[in-house]
C-alpha cells in the first residue's frame, strides 16, 4: 500500500507544479509584486487533509525544489522556500484548531506565505521600505486564501471518496 500512496503523492506533486505554471501564464493580478492567486496551495491543503502533515510537507518541499530548479533562479527559490515554509507552519498549526475550517487554514496559509516573501524581500533586496506593501499583502492574502480554501473544500470530499474506492477495489 505504500506504493499506492507514493503514486498519489506523485500525482499531487504534478498537480502542484501544473497549477504553479498556470499561475505563471495568467496576467498579474495587480501592480503589486508578490500578489498571486496561490493556486498551488490548494494542493498542499488537499494533501494535508487526505494524507496528513508529513506527506503534505514532503510534497510541498519537493514542489518548491523542483519548480525552483526547473523554472526559477536562486532568488525565486529563496522566496518560494520562505513563503512556503511559513505558510506550511501556519497551516499545520491552525488545522489543529477545531473552530477553523479549511477556509480559515487556507487564509492563514496565504497570509503567512505573503509575509514570508515580504521578509525574504526585505533581506534580499536590503530595502526596508518594502514593508509598506504589508497591509495590501495581508488583504490580498485574505482574499486569495479564502478563494483557494473554498476550492480545496469542494474538491476534497470527492477526492477522498475516489481514493477510498480505489483501495477497496484492489
Amino acid at each position, binding site marked *: 500500500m505504500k506504493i499506492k500512496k507514493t503514486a498519489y503523492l506523485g500525482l499531487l506533486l504534478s498537480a502542484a507544479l501544473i497549477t504553479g505554471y498556470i499561475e505563471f501564464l495568467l496576467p498579474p493580478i495587480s501592480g503589486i509584486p508578490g500578489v498571486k492567486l496561490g493556486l498551488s496551495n490548494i494542493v498542499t491543503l488537499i494533501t494535508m487533509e487526505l494524507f496528513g502533515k508529513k506527506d503534505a510537507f514532503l510534497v510541498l518541499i519537493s514542489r518548491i525544489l523542483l519548480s525552483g530548479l526547473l523554472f526559477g533562479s536562486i532568488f525565486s527559490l529563496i522566496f518560494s522556500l520562505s513563503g512556503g515554509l511559513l505558510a506550511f507552519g501556519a497551516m499545520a498549526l491552525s488545522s489543529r484548531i477545531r473552530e477553523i475550517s479549511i477556509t480559515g487554514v487556507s487564509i*492563514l496559509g496565504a497570509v503567512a506565505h505573503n509575509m514570508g516573501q515580504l521578509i525574504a524581500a526585505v533581506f534580499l*533586496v536590503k530595502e526596508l521600505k518594502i514593508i*509598506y506593501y504589508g497591509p495590501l499583502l495581508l488583504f490580498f492574502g485574505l482574499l486569495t486564501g479564502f478563494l483557494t480554501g473554498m476550492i480545496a473544500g469542494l474538491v476534497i470530499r470527492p477526492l477522498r471518496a475516489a481514493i477510498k474506492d480505489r483501495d477497496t477495489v484492489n
Partner: protein
Amino acid sequence: MKKGDIYVALLILIVAVLWYWILKSGNDRAESSGVSRAVSISVDGTEVMELSLFEDRSEIIRGVNGYSCEVNITSGKADVVWADCPDKLCVNQRAIASVGETIVCLPARIVIEIKEEGEPFYDGISGSPGDPGGGCFNGCVGRSRRGAL
C-alpha cells in the same frame, strides 16, 4: 465556513489596518516636520536623479541595454508614461505618490521610487549573474526565467 474563520478574517483585517496606520502616521509625522517627498530615479542600482514630487516635470531616463523610459511628475504623482522596453510593465503600473512605492522597468534596470527628500538611496540591487535585480520578489514576469511559486 466555521465561526473561527470569521475571527481569522477579522484578525487579519485588523492587523492590516493597524499596520497601515502605523506606517501612515510615521509618514505624516515626517512630512509635518518639513521633510517632503521626492522621486528617486536610479539606473542599475545607482541613483541618477532626485526630483521633488511637487514640481511638475518630465524626464527621459536612459537605462541599461539601450532601453529608456519617460517619467512624468504631475500633481504630486510620478508615473511612467512611455518606455521602449519589450514588456511595458512599467507603463501599465499605476502612478505612485506614497513613500516606499516604486515603479520598476526591469529590462532597463530603472527604479523609480518615492522617498523622503534627502534620504540616501538604499541600493537594493545585488549583483550576480542572471540576477534580474530590482526587488523582483515574486519572480520576473515576462522573462524566460520562472517566478517564485
